[in-house]
């Protein structure tokens, strides 16, 4: 009888294979499946862990670097001072309190509401620490030029505190404190006015700020010797503007104005029109060495705002005085000769500056200006006063609610740190990319976990129901041909 090849192949296979342990085959398949699932789960967990680690540690990379490398790796110069600034100040976890000895800092950064007491200390590579529990509400901490000293009014004692960031030494100047909020702490003889700039002398010994004798009426520029705690009023009714390079001569400033008659005297008695300013060169005892009359090349527009305490600052070489004039059409930067008061160069308008927090010198022709745009992006701009060209040097995550960055002068003149992929972009994604990677991954992981739990629950329920397994346990060792 003739047979087909199909039958012959089937017979040959049956003959070769003989009896089969099919339960073992099924059990082996299940075991292989479970091993594969376990591997996939482990790989998934490892992947998520890796992503979480990367997304948390990359911005916190500075934490590792701080531990692993000398201070020079985070923007500190060989001489111990800071020599660089951060390009991006953004999300960080965790944010700890400022330690006693963090090394030189590049900046202090205000938190939500610059007049509040929310402040962060920022290293050159962008690493942040909290300062806000320490600083008196309304005060503005100040870094020395090299970033190694931090002066602020302490919230707990209402006294001036100077932290030596390179040595960890903290000095509380018990005779100098807050003058505006009674009751004044006992023993305080010189009060520092809140919301006033503090100019460090180039050698980091003296502070020039705004204040006066407690209980007295005289207010003006005050010089504080941070090594002894001695303080002296060096000019009445003037604003501090900075130091000359010798560190023993300082510059004060006072605006001059006239009252123009108002066309509606019933409503307003007069309009203040600023005509110029008087600059005084003063020594540490308050002796006036020279008085210079500052006059703009073109008269400042009516209704300009000039005499804010944040306005004037002296260039590092002591030759120029920077002033910011707020006009109805926007802010202008102007510079004047300290020697004779004439305006140097042209006025530089600040475009798209919704708010200007501070302005300081970087070098003889470049200033650093912190502005907030209409979209509430706070950024530090480097502006060349000769050409008027500006570039963004530091951007701050809007989520921090910051409106001001106070940079140590040497930091502003140093190199840029960080920036990475996003540079100075202020796009939403540049600040929120971690959330767009980490959160979806966590959500997927949670969903996967829920599905696994549901499957396990259903499997358990099925296995407990009577008669559910009776049909599946028989073994067939012969089977039928395919």
């Amino acid at each position, binding site marked *: 009888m003739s047979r087909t*090849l199909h039958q012959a192949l089937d017979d040959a296979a049956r003959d070769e294979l003989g009896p089969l342990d099919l339960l073992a085959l099924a059990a082996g398949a299940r075991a292989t499946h479970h091993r594969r699932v376990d591997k996939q789960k482990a790989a998934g967990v490892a992947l998520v862990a890796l992503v979480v680690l990367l997304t948390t540690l990359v911005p916190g990379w500075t934490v590792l670097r701080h531990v692993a490398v000398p201070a020079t790796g985070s923007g500190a110069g060989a001489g111990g001072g800071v020599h660089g600034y951060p390009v991006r100040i953004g999300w960080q976890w965790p944010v700890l309190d400022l330690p006693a000895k963090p090394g030189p800092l590049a900046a202090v950064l205000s938190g939500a509401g610059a007049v509040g007491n929310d402040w962060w200390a920022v290293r050159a590579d962008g690493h942040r620490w909290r300062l806000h529990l320490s600083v008196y509400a309304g005060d503005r901490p100040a870094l020395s030029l090299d970033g190694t000293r931090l002066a602020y009014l302490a919230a707990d004692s209402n006294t001036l505190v100077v932290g030596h960031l390179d040595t960890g030494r903290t000095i509380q100047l018990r005779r100098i404190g807050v003058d505006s909020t009674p009751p004044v702490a006992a023993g305080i003889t010189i009060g520092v006015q809140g919301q006033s700039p503090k100019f460090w002398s180039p050698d980091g010994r003296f502070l020039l700020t705004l204040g006066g004798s407690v209980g007295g009426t005289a207010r003006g520029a005050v010089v504080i010797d941070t090594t002894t705690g001695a303080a002296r009023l060096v000019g009445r009714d003037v604003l501090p503007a900075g130091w000359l390079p010798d560190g023993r001569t300082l510059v004060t400033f006072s605006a001059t104005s006239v009252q123009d008659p108002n066309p509606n005297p019933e409503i307003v008695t007069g309009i203040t029109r600023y005509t110029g300013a008087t600059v005084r060169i003063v020594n540490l005892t308050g002796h006036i060495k020279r008085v210079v009359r500052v006059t703009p090349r073109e008269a400042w527009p009516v209704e300009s705002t000039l005499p804010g305490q944040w306005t004037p600052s002296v260039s590092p070489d002591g030759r120029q005085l920077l002033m910011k004039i707020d006009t109805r059409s926007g802010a202008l930067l102007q510079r004047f000769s300290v020697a004779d008061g004439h305006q140097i160069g042209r006025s530089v308008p600040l475009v798209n500056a919704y708010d200007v927090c501070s302005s300081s010198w970087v070098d003889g022709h470049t200033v650093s200006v912190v502005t907030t745009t209409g979209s509430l992006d706070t950024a530090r701009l480097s502006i060349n006063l000769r050409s008027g060209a500006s570039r963004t040097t530091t951007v701050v995550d809007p989520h921090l609610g910051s409106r001001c960055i106070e940079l140590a002068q040497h930091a502003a003149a140093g190199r840029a740190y960080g920036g990475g992929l996003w540079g100075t972009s202020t796009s939403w994604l540049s600040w929120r990319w971690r959330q767009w990677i980490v959160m979806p991954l966590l959500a997927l992981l949670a969903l996967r976990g829920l599905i696994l739990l549901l499957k396990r629950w259903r499997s358990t329920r099925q296995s407990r129901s009577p008669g559910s397994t009776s049909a599946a346990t028989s073994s067939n060792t012969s089977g039928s041909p395919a």
Partner: protein
Amino acid sequence: MDGFEAFVAARGPALLRTAWLLTGDRQFAEDVVQEALSRVVGRWGRLVRGGDPEAYVRRAVYNAVVDRSRRRSSSEVATGGVADADGRAPDGADEVLSRLTLQQALARLTDRQRQVLVLRFYEDLGETRTAELMGCSAGTVKSQTAHALRRLRELAPELAETFGREGFTTPTEVRR
């Protein structure tokens, strides 16, 4: 238990036979089938609801075998005819002898020849489906089938007498 064990008990032998015929290696056949089953056990309920879990498993077996043969050198194993049985075998022993002869002849085919024979004559797949599984054209399947049958006749001429010549003819196109 969700019917998976019952399926293995019922269809496992057929799957193993197919795998062995495709590979000629019992251990590898068992590994291939177990691996294919492990890939369906996690979604067994869904496959059962889909209607035809065996098709999925067979497909996995075919793919695993074809993948392995692609990785291996596809050179033909040692050639040469099977030694003729010495004298005429007694009735009843003919069947055993022919199975042994077929096993030896299959072992001497190349992987591709073996696979094309099994897929076409044992699994009754059409040329198109076989070509799809083997990753080649239908024309190649046709020529490989002709080569394999010719080779089988050369290696085991007595099989043609045992099974009849129609057993060595190419089946009509059947789609599975």
